[in-house]
């Protein structure tokens, strides 16, 4: 009897936490569906409308905020950053997993230390530099700086995937007359494909969610959703319904991806510090 009560109490506590965790999302959905004239009056009874979404996503919305464009910008720079990081990070991760060479550990630690560096440390000099080079408010500029987020993630996690792979597989390939390059592309790479998929999605989410870089290094052309979502809060009368709709639209991609890669998340989030 006492055990039963305890079990119910435990489930109750768990549900309480999840109410706290999910309520803001649910509330944003409610807010985003409210008609503008009912925003400040009643709370739970209203006729839902998709007007907010229409305004937020509309090309010529009366708010003058090209949110759809910001959404596309986010897609371009996040995908670009992930693609570049993969091209650069996979060979580096492989090298770090297979060879111990002079400075390898220091190099790896330097990469990881970017994870802990306050973003503004490099962003102010970059701001000055970007103004000079013409990279301010451009895709190239954003993709370059997002490497700070995506590259360490990809190198560290893929290194642990490559390390888990038995080197004998590649040795066998070499015995069969493969070159080193072929062994990498035809044996090692296909075997870590699930890892690559998971880490790419995670890196995409991190790039998508970044706020400081687009805040300071873009103004309009290359601005992303995280900065764009704030636009609806300004003005003399804050547009709660529009803000809620913008917030929800901007979290759709990361949420969908997260649900697909859930299984691999732990290793990614902790940079391989906890293997599961």
């Amino acid at each position, binding site marked *: 009897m006492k055990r039963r009560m305890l*079990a119910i109490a435990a*489930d109750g*506590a*768990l549900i309480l*936490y*999840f109410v706290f*965790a999910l309520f*803001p999302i649910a509330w*944003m959905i409610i807010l985003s569906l409210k008609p503008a004239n009912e*925003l400040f009056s009643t709370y739970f009874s209203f006729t839902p409308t998709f007007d907010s979404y229409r305004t937020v996503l509309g090309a010529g919305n009366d708010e003058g905020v090209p949110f759809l464009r910001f959404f596309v910008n986010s897609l371009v720079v996040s995908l670009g950053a992930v693609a570049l990081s993969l091209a*650069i990070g996979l*060979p*580096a991760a492989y*090298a*770090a*997993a*297979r*060879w*111990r*060479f002079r400075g*390898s550990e220091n*190099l790896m630690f*330097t*990469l990881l*230390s*970017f994870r*802990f560096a*306050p*973003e*503004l*440390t490099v962003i*102010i*000099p*970059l701001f000055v*530099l970007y103004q000079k080079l013409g990279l301010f408010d451009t895709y190239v500029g954003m993709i370059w700086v997002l490497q700070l987020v995506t590259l360490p993630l990809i190198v560290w996690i893929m290194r642990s995937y490559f*390390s888990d792979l038995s080197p004998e597989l590649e040795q066998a390939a*070499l*015995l*069969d*007359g*493969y*070159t*080193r390059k072929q062994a990498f592309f035809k044996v090692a790479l296909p075997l870590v494909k699930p890892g690559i998929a998971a880490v790419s999605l995670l890196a995409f989410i991190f790039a998508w*969610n*970044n*706020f400081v870089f687009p805040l300071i290094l873009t103004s309009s052309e290359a601005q992303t959703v*995280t900065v764009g*979502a*704030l636009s609806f*809060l300004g003005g003399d009368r804050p547009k709660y319904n529009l803000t809620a709709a913008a917030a929800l639209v901007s979290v759709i991609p*990361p949420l969908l*991806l*997260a*649900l697909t890669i859930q299984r691999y*998340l*732990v290793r990614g*989030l902790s940079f391989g*510090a*906890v293997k*599961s």
Partner: protein
Amino acid sequence: MYTSLKETDHGAASHEGGGPPARAVPRWRRSLRPYLLIVPALLLTGGILYPFGLGLFYTFFDFAASKPQPDMVGLENYRRIFTETSFWNSAWVTVLYAVGAAAVETVLGVGVALLLHRSTLVGRVLEKILILPLMIAPVIAAIMWKLMLQPSVGVINYLLKPFGLGGVQWTDTPAGALLSSIAVDVWVYTPFVAILALAGLRSLPVSPFEAAAVDGAGWWFTFRRLTLPMLWPYVLVAVIFRFMDSLKVFDIIYALTEGGPGDSTVVLQIRAYLEAIRFQRYSFGISYMIVLWAVVYLVTMVLVRYLGKIQNRAAEVPK
């Protein structure tokens, strides 16, 4: 962990395999190979280290929008930082925020992990959605909470009204603003601690728990003497990540309070942002960041060393 493949690079081995002999690769090229693979990453690292070095260089000048022809001022920027009360205020707020957020997230996250580990039906269903807040950009989370915390029209005060707490000025009082921003941090990142703790719990050996159960040990005793010490290395990874990240918090505060009211939530990164971007005192703003960077770097080193010690000790316990 590291495996040398050197021996297999020799062509001789492939003859025994029966395949065609591999092209002989000169020794110097073989030893160069890992470097070649890592060069692109190095270049990119350089692309980031250069601005960092440039920033460090700027801190010895008085570069600002009002002074486009900067003079060399040596350590003047740093001297000014450490003698200004606003720095010490920011440092204090940052520490309060980081310690508060990391502490609450650790306790709550481990608690949630323990509850989920029981793996009841409720737990299995809820576990699937545990990560949702974590995947929302912190700045978006802050925007969501900002809407909910509005004193007059926000849903939180509406829900609190029956309890006689209808008019709390959440983000308009110094203590309320700090607590609110910590609450947003807790909302976003508690799942992170919970996920890592849960992974840790699932990888713990079963036999000590079975032995304890046979001996009739109570829940509290098992938790304090077995679960917690064995779980600690896993939790510590999460704590380190959370503490480091909270020290350099920016987006949550920027969207929720912009450092206000007054300067009650001006954490170091916000102060640096205000100095460098808003007031365009570039050198001074970067100096703030260099100080924060140095602190984060030192604290990371100490914590990582402590983590290594703990993990070694944990590895000595036979599983």
